[in-house]
């Protein structure tokens, strides 16, 4: 089967999902009114509420929602075979993903631009807001652990990568200086800084540089310093955390914004080159790469046929684990948060909501399918299924993407050695973009909740350091694959709560709500099952692994406990949500009788 077929399936899914299902729901249920003033125009203050053109907002929404989730999630999920991963990406987006993104925007637009904290307070219960914010804090902590581990343990330990990342960051700072201080033309700034970033990534691949970076990381066989953490992993994770600290406490215009600007071009050009390379190459999906491995996603037996005799840890049963492993590739709670707090306040016209919210989600589906193909053909067609299994077994899902993308870009004329480094820098920058924002939010949340009792938390540095120390604890001590599943579970549990909030709102307005409520129930049951299963698996793995270091034991138990706490928080929220639904139903009946 040709590798372009999944892309064709994606295009058909977009035509059906966006062209028919989303438009029908939009027309019959939401009924956007172009004449109605949106919060962006009604409350325009030039600060939080500012109307923006629909195309601009589409780009903004896509950039805000696309991070490591739609790339790493589908790659890890290929453990069950590429077909289940592809099916969930397509059907998840078609039936759930766009529903959540779009309805979150419209809920906020129709409710005066209020965000989820205020809406849960008003629509569900006062305590729902507190629990929601606590839930978001711990969910973001798992996000930091999952992203930090990919960057610090996987991508940056490749000696060809760290210099490229550090140089791109330095070049980003230069872009900020050129834009804000020297007031140079943005086009000139872009051309100079992006060209320099390319040179920086290339410089990282020079053998002398690689030897030096390898020496910094303790040599070719980096020594263990505690638990199963090598010196290189410790060092580069620490560097990543320091970068996040600077991103969280320095003025946004000085650090995060210009670096993100240069990073955007690296990511954008990488996606274009990868897609172009795939179209030129259009290989067949290799027969040796299984469409379905087994129900447990166990690579041990699946990879045995490819000559790999290693024992791999099974992530768990296809349902519910695959559904949360794919994370943002199908549906993501993060999207609802940024949609309601950012996009909804810039929507100029109600009828633009579908294009912006659903359209960006369908584009993310395309990115997720492209990621599956980096594993299946980028690696599978060149080095076989065994290589994929080896990399995943070593916790190098980021490496799978970098290598797969490099093979694709090679067909667009870019050498593989440069492409691998480029892919890794691309992924690292994508992760950092979100990580700055997450640490900033965690700092603000801790200041609000603890600032009155412990005044230290009002200090920006202190709150950021606490968030980073907690993240470091999980990064250095957790099992990566389990942390990823826990992050995916928390992320999608957040999505189910967003859908529940939307359902309560639709019911309050007397509108049809099953199109949001059924996905909410499905995601809630799936994610709770996944979190509990993974927490149990973590505890079992800790108990059954002989001679486990104390730090690994403590870190994994902490991750499992966080998962259980998230489930408890979600149960309270759902309980309050059901009470709110009953209240509304009773109110509606009383109104009907009157």
């Amino acid at each position, binding site marked *: 089967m040709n590798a372009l077929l999944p892309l064709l399936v994606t295009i058909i899914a977009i035509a059906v999902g966006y062209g028919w299902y989303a438009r029908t729901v939009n027309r019959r249920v939401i009924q956007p009114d172009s004449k109605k003033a949106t919060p962006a125009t009604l409350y325009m203050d030039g600060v939080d509420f500012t109307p923006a053109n629909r*195309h601009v907002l589409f*780009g903004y929404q896509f950039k805000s929602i696309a991070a490591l989730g739609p790339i790493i999630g589908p790659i890890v999920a290929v453990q069950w075979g590429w077909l289940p991963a592809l099916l969930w990406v397509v059907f998840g987006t078609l039936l759930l993903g766009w529903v959540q993104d779009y309805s979150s925007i419209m809920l906020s637009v129709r409710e005066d631009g209020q*965000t989820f904290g205020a809406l849960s307070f008003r629509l569900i219960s006062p305590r729902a807001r507190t629990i929601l914010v606590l839930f978001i804090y711990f969910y973001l902590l798992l996000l930091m652990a999952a992203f930090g581990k990919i960057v610090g343990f996987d991508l940056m330990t490749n000696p060809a990568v760290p210099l490229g990342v550090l140089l791109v960051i330095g070049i980003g700072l230069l872009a900020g200086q050129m834009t804000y201080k020297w007031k140079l033309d943005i086009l000139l700034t872009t051309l100079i800084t992006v060209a320099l970033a390319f040179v920086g990534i290339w410089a990282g691949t020079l053998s002398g540089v690689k030897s030096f970076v390898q020496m910094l990381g303790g040599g070719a066989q980096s020594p263990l310093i505690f638990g199963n953490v090598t010196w290189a992993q410790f060092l580069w994770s620490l560097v990543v955390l320091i970068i996040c600290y600077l991103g969280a406490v320095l003025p946004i215009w000085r650090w995060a914004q210009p670096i993100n600007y240069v990073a955007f071009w690296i990511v*954008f050009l990488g996606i274009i080159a990868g897609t172009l390379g795939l179209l030129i190459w259009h290989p067949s999906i290799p027969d040796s790469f299984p469409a379905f491995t087994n129900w447990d996603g166990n690579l041990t037996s699946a990879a045995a046929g490819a000559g790999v005799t290693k024992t791999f840890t099974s992530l768990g049963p296809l349902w519910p684990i695959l559904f949360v492993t794919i994370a943002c590739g199908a549906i993501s709670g993060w999207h609802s948060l940024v949609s309601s707090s950012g996009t909804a306040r810039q929507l100029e016209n109600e009828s633009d909501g579908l294009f912006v919210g659903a359209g960006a989600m369908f584009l993310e589906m395309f990115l997720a399918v492209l990621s599956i193909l980096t594993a299946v053909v980028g690696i599978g067609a060149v080095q076989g299924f065994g290589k994929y299994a080896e990399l995943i077994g070593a916790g190098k899902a980021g490496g799978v993407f970098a290598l797969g993308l490099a093979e694709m870009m090679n067909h667009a004329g870019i050498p593989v050695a440069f492409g691998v480094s480029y892919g890794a820098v691309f992924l690292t920058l994508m992760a950092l973009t979100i990580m700055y924002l997450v640490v900033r939010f965690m700092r603000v949340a801790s200041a*609000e909740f603890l600032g009155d009792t412990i005044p230290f938390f009002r200090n920006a540095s202190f709150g950021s350091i606490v968030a980073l120390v907690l993240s470091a604890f999980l990064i250095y001590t957790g099992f990566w694959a389990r942390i990823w599943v826990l992050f995916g579970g928390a992320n999608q549990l957040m999505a189910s709560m967003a859908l529940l909030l939307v359902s309560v709102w639709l019911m309050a307005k007397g509108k049809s709500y099953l199109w949001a409520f059924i996905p909410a129930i499905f995601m809630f049951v799936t994610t709770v099952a996944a979190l509990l299963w993974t927490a149990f698996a973590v505890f079992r793995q800790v108990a059954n692994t002989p001679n486990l270091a104390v730090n690994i034991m403590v870190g994994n138990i902490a991750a499992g406990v966080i998962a259980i706490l998230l489930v408890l928080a979600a149960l309270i929220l759902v309980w309050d949500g059901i009470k709110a639904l009953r209240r509304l139903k009773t109110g509606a009946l009383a109104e009907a009788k009157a």
Partner: protein
Amino acid sequence: MGDDEKKKGLMSGIKGVLYGMAGHDMTRYALKTRGSMEHLFILITMGDLLGIPILPPYYSLRLLPYVVPQISTWKRRMLREKDLTDALA
């Protein structure tokens, strides 16, 4: 709509999407920073308009004509209830 207009529309759409991905966040943040500073300044000088017990200085009167166009948006923002989850974007 003619072919030329369609082409122009498509090009401007692509430009808009690219700008939205690359630079909109930067522009938005710059505007936000400027807006916040201006609103803070108005609060210090004209806070009595919101009932904040500030004894209006002489300069408030001199500044008033320049501040008038912004008073409605400033009031709107100052009086709006804010939530922690606003900080996510």
